């Protein structure tokens, strides 16, 4: 099932939560919606599910108008951020709910329901909890039951709103792997919301980065990480060193110093230079390099992280870099930094 979202606008009062959102999700894809809090991720998901209605725009599933149908007729499985399990039903009944409320003409008989629920509980590996109530489950267990409940109706689309948001780091990591392999098994078109970039980059085929109700970039994890299209994406994904520069006559100027890097077609004027922390080469201070004194070094794991006080225009700017450990840095030492890879975005863009 493909999902096509076109020019969706959603306002709450005079606040625009979604501003002309366009998105195409391919069949069988596992797509991550990534963005800071309040960027409109949940709102977009709810509109796709039919729990919220857009002010403008269209949504179609496999070319068919989805807005013509209510939430119950879209056959969309929704996993809520806070699970929303039915608290007065046990796990079995929670999962069976979607089967029981079907119109009598298509409803399974009791044996069929029992078989299907048992299968689903096995799929999420929680068959032994069938008789428990939601209040007697751990967060990770609730999340998996919520997923089983959503899968019971054999949804054409699966939407997950921060499925692992409320869980601790270790459980998150496990469930992440588990979701990935589950998706490989059942291959239903899925969108999941997260504001954890690592989660998005690791689990999804493609990542949609949102900010302030707009889509900033859509791409594979490598694309959004290595070739961010906007300053926002660059600073939101991965750790970056950001320096204010000026593009003038095809040269990149940091203060009164001309850097030995090409502007790569950046438009002239005040701009921002983005460098990944690990994309700098350490060398003896030279002419066109960034130059600064080492202030603090923390060496752990494969890299050493150092605070460097860059000298620009007589001022000092503190930046953090990650350097391989083969070259030992000493506090007080003055070093040159040559950006290996970098991107320049016009300021204010």
């Amino acid at each position, binding site marked *: 099932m493909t999902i096509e979202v076109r020019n969706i606008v959603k306002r709450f009062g005079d606040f625009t939560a979604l501003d002309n959102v366009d998105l195409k999700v391919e069949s069988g894809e596992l797509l991550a919606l990534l963005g800071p809090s309040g960027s409109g991720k949940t709102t977009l998901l709810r509109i796709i*599910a*039919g*729990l919220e209605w857009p002010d403008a725009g269209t949504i179609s599933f496999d070319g068919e108008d989805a807005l013509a149908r*209510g*939430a*119950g*007729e*879209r*056959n*969309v*499985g*929704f996993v*809520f951020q*806070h699970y*929303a*399990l*039915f*608290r*007065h039903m046990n796990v079995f009944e929670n999962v069976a*709910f*979607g089967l029981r*409320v*079907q119109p009598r003409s298509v409803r399974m008989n009791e044996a069929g329901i029992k078989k299907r629920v048992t299968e689903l509980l096995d799929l999420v590996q929680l068959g032994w909890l069938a008789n428990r*109530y*939601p*209040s007697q489950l751990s967060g990770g267990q609730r999340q998996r039951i919520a997923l089983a*409940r*959503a899968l*019971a*109706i054999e949804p054409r689309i699966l939407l997950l709103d921060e499925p692992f948001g409320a869980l601790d780091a270790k459980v998150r990591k496990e469930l992440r792997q588990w979701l990935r392999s589950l998706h490989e098994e059942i291959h239903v078109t899925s969108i999941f919301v997260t504001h954890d970039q690592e989660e998005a980059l690791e689990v999804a085929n493609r990542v949609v980065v949102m900010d302030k109700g707009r889509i900033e970039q859509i791409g594979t994890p490598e694309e959004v990480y290595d070739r961010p299209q906007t300053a926002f994406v660059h600073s939101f994904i991965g750790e970056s060193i950001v320096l204010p520069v000026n593009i003038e006559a095809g040269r990149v100027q940091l203060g009164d110093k001309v850097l030995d890097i090409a502007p790569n077609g950046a438009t002239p004027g005040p701009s921002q230079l983005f460098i990944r922390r690990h994309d700098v080469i350490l060398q003896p201070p030279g002419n066109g390099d960034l130059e600064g004194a080492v202030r603090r070094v923390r060496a752990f794991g494969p890299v050493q992280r150092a605070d460097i006080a860059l000298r620009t225009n007589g001022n000092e700017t503190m930046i953090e870099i990650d350097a391989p450990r083969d070259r030992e840095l000493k506090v007080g030492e003055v070093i040159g930094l040559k950006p290996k890879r970098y991107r320049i975005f016009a300021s204010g863009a």
Partner: protein
Amino acid sequence: MSETLPLRDLTKAKESSRSEPALVRYIIIALAVTFLTIFVVLPLIVVFTTAFSRGIGAYLAALAGEEALAAIRLTLIVAAISVLLNLVFGIAAAWAISKFEFPGKTFLNTLIDLPFSVSPVISGLVFVLLFGAQGLLGPWLLANDIQIIFAVPGIVLATTFVTFPFVAREMIPLMQDQGTSEEEAALSLGASGLKTFWRVTLPNVKWGLLYGVLLCNARAMGEFGAVSVVSGHIRGETNTMPLLVEILYNEYQFVAAFAIASLLAMLALITLVIKIILEGRLERHHSDH
């Protein structure tokens, strides 16, 4: 408190902060007990002793009298209808207020409390002014031969009005507390609005609902002021139990009056017991999540 204080002293200090002068504690407890005895226990004892003062035979005879039976029947009918109406209205109002956004919501929320803030006698009078012979709709009702005031419909109306807030007030905070996410989950799983209500919304508030119904029923059976205004006190026809108690008392038929009163008192006691059970349930239900 210093940190080096031994644990033993700490617990002692904690105890004494609660149990300061023992005398004060005893005085307060004694006051409460005396108050309860005078205002609650004594009246109850008086009701039952007076009711049985001529023996159990006279008591049963008083209850089996035609007027008494008519009053009991009427009270049960009125309470049944009012509770049913308020069950429906109360759930509807609570559902609307707690699960939807609409203009005038705050106003509706305030309006629900109106019956509590108005004297029952005034409530009764309003119905007389509306439906009485000289009332707003009086001529039309007369022309169509419909009698509301001084008849059962008036009593039902007045009782329903006075007891309206019980169910709604009990349900609104419960429903608000539960939010809408379970309903949304049900909808997206394909349940219709009605099925969602029956299978998700209602089961989640059932103990609160029962609690509201219980209080509503107790008040409906015991209502005096509003009913007194619209009833017309027609013997054997429009007298509810509380009204009959007053009439009998004024006629110095103490045994009969208190026999009926004892039924109302028993209703109160039963209500109390069920209330305690329900409160326990409600609490457990709440601490579940």
